C-alpha cells in the first residue's frame, strides 16, 4: 500500500507538471461539448424543391404555397416541364422534384386522385430521404385540408407519430450523451497509453523494473490517476450539457457515474495493455486509434445497432462502449433505473475486470 501511494504521488506530481495533459483534460471536453452538438445535426433543413406543375389549378398553387411555408422545405422554382426541373437538380440547385399531374385537382374532386411523383437527389442519402418524407407530409396535409373543406371523405388516414423521451426528435439530445462517451474513450484510452509508452521511451521503466515493485501495484498506479481524470472529464461535460443545452439526466446521476467508472476502468485497462505491448509511441497510438474507431463507429454511438447486419450485431456484443451507450442514453433520456439496466452494468463490470487484468498480465518486468 505504501508503495502504491508513493507511485501515485509520483504520477500526480508528473501529471501536474506536464505542460500538455492537464490542458487536454480541461479543454478537450469544453471544445467538444460546445462545438460538436451544433455541427453534428442530422435534422434536415432547407430542402430545395422544384415543382413541375402540369395542373395549374387552385390545388397545385395551394400545394406550392404550403410546401414553401414548411420549416424544412423551400420552393426553388416552378417549372413547366420535367426536363427543366431535372436540369436544376443536376446543377445541384434543387434537392427534390415534385410533379403534379394534369387534372390533379379534378381527379381529387372525383375521389380518384392521380398519383404525384417525387424525385429526390440521393447523393446525400439522408437529405434525399428525409426531404421526400417531409414533402410527402406537406402534400398529405394539404390534401387533407382541401378534402375537409370540400366535404370529401379523407382519402388517407394520416398516421400520427409521437416520439417518446425525445419528443421533438432533437438530434442534439441523442448526441450529447454520445459525445460524453466519446470523450471518455479518447481521454481514458489514449492518456494512460501515452503515459506508459513514454516511460518506455525515456527508459525510466528500466529503472523501475530492477526495483522490487510488483507489476500489479505498478499497473494500478498507472490506472488510478486516469480513473479520476475520467470522472473529472465527465463532470465537466455534464455541467456543460446542463448549462448550455439544458439537458440533465432524467434518471439518477449516481447511476451515470457508476457506469462511467466501470467504463473508465475498461478503457484505461485497454490503453495500458496496448502500451505494454508497444515499444514506441507511434505503435501504441496506431493500435489505439484502430480500436477507438471501431468503438465509435460500431457500438451504436452514431448509428443504431439494430440497423446493422446480423453478423455485425454479434460483434458489437464484444464492444464495451455498446453497454455504456445503452446505459447513458437510457438514464439521460428515459430516466431508466439500475433495475432496468442491470445486465448492461453487469456486462460493463465484466469488461472492466477482464481489461484491467489483461493490463496487469501484459506488463512483463523481464523479457
Amino acid at each position, binding site marked *: 500500500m505504501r508503495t502504491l501511494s508513493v507511485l501515485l504521488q509520483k504520477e500526480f506530481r508528473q501529471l501536474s507538471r506536464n505542460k500538455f495533459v492537464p490542458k487536454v483534460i480541461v479543454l478537450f471536453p469544453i471544445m467538444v461539448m460546445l462545438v460538436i452538438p451544433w455541427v453534428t445535426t442530422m435534422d434536415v433543413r432547407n430542402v430545395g424543391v422544384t415543382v413541375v406543375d402540369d395542373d395549374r389549378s387552385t390545388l397545385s398553387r395551394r400545394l406550392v404555397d404550403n410546401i414553401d411555408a414548411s420549416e424544412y422545405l423551400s420552393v426553388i422554382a416552378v417549372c413547366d416541364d420535367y426536363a427543366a426541373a431535372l436540369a436544376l437538380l443536376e446543377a445541384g440547385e434543387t434537392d427534390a422534384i415534385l410533379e403534379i399531374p394534369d387534372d390533379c385537382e379534378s381527379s381529387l374532386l372525383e375521389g380518384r386522385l392521380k398519383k404525384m411523383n417525387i424525385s429526390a437527389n440521393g447523393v446525400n442519402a439522408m437529405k434525399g430521404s428525409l426531404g421526400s418524407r417531409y414533402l410527402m407530409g406537406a402534400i398529405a396535409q394539404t390534401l387533407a385540408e382541401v378534402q375537409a373543406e370540400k366535404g370529401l371523405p379523407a382519402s388517407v388516414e394520416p398516421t400520427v407519430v409521437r416520439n417518446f423521451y425525445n419528443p421533438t426528435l432533437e438530434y442534439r439530445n441523442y448526441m450529447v450523451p454520445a459525445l460524453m462517451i466519446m470523450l471518455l474513450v479518447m481521454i481514458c484510452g489514449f492518456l494512460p497509453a501515452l503515459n506508459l509508452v513514454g516511460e518506455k521511451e525515456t527508459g525510466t521503466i*528500466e529503472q523501475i523494473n*530492477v*526495483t*522490487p515493485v510488483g507489476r500489479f501495484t505498478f499497473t494500478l498506479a498507472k490506472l488510478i490517476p486516469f480513473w479520476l481524470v475520467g470522472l473529472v472529464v465527465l463532470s465537466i461535460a455534464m455541467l456543460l450539457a446542463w448549462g448550455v443545452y439544458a439537458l440533465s439526466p432524467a434518471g439518477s446521476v449516481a447511476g451515470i457515474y457508476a457506469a462511467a467508472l466501470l467504463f473508465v476502468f475498461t478503457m484505461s485497462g485497454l490503453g495500458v495493455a496496448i502500451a505494454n505491448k508497444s515499444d514506441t509511441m507511434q505503435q501504441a497510438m496506431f493500435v489505439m486509434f484502430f480500436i477507438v474507431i471501431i468503438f465509435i463507429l460500431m457500438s451504436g454511438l452514431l448509428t443504431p445497432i439494430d440497423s446493422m447486419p446480423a453478423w455485425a450485431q454479434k460483434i458489437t456484443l464484444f464492444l464495451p462502449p455498446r453497454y455504456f451507450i445503452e446505459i447513458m442514453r437510457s438514464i439521460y433520456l428515459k430516466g431508466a433505473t439500475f433495475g432496468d439496466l442491470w445486465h448492461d452494468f453487469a456486462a460493463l463490470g465484466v469488461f472492466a475486470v477482464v481489461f484491467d487484468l489483461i493490463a496487469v498480465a501484459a506488463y512483463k518486468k523481464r523479457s
Partner: protein
Amino acid sequence: MNARYAIEIDGLTKRYGSMTALDRVSFRVERGELFGLIGPDGAGKTTLFRLLTTLMNPDEGTAAVDGLDCVASYRQIRSRVGYMPGRFSLYADLSVEENLAFFAALFGVRVADNYDLIAPIYRQIEPFRTRRAGKLSGGMKQKLALCCALIHRPSVLFLDEPTTGVDAVSRSEFWDMLAELKAKEISILVSTPYMDEADRCDRIALINEGHLLAVDSPRGIVSAYGERIYTLSGGDMYALLLAARRLPHVRRCCPFGAAHHLSVDADFDAAACRRQLMDEGFADVALQPAESGIEDVFIKLMNHE
C-alpha cells in the same frame, strides 16, 4: 548473506534471433571487488547487465548474484542490487530530491537510513536538490543516478557505461567515487568502452562480440599477453602505416592516436627500420619503445579470434 562471490557466471549464453549476443561467458567477481567489463560497443556488455539484473532470462548457462540464482531468485536479487543503466533513466520532470526519495521508497527505505553511503556523492548535487533532474548537466545527472542506485545499500552495484559521454575530469572523479564505495564493501561491476579506465579496476574482463577474451588484473593481462611495442610517428601518417607493415619482424601495426603502435618480434631492429623508413622518404621518423597497454592486448586478442 555470505555468498563467496558477488557474481558467479557459468556458460552464460543469450541469443537475439540468429544473433548471439553472449557466447558461453564464465567469470566470477569476488566480494568487495571493483570489476571492469571492457569492450567496444556491441560486445554484449549491456546484455550481460540485463541478465544479471534480472531484466532478461539467459538462453543457456547460469548466473548468480550475491549467491542467488538470477532466474529462480530474481525477486530477492532485485532488492539487493543497484543498477545504473547506460542511458539516463530517472524522471526528468521530478526534482533531484524527489527522484531520490521516490527510489528510496520503492525499496522500502528512507533517504536518511543510508545517507552515509551516498553523502560524499549527494553533497555535490545537494545545492541543486530542487532542480528538475532533466535540467541537470551530464555529470550531475550521473551522480544523481548513482545516488538513486545506491540508496537502498545494495550489495552489488551494476554500472553500465557510467562514464560514456562524460568529460575527462568528471570521469576521473567518478572513478574516485567508485573507489570509495569499494571501501564500503560494495561489489561493483562496471562496464566501459574506454581502455584507459581499465587500470582503475581490481580485475577486468575483456569482451568482444559476445566472447570473453581474458580475465585478470590489468597488470596481469598486460604481462600475460603483452608484446614488445614501439610507437612510430612522422610525416604522412597513413603512408607510414602501410610502409611500417612491410618492415621485417613487425607483427602488427595499428593507428593509435597521434602515433602508430608496432608490435614486434624479438629480432626487431629499431635503428635499421628507422633508417629504412627515412630512405623511403619519410621525414622526422620517431620510433621509440613503449609499454604495452590494455588496448594493445585487446587488439591482439581480437585479431587472434
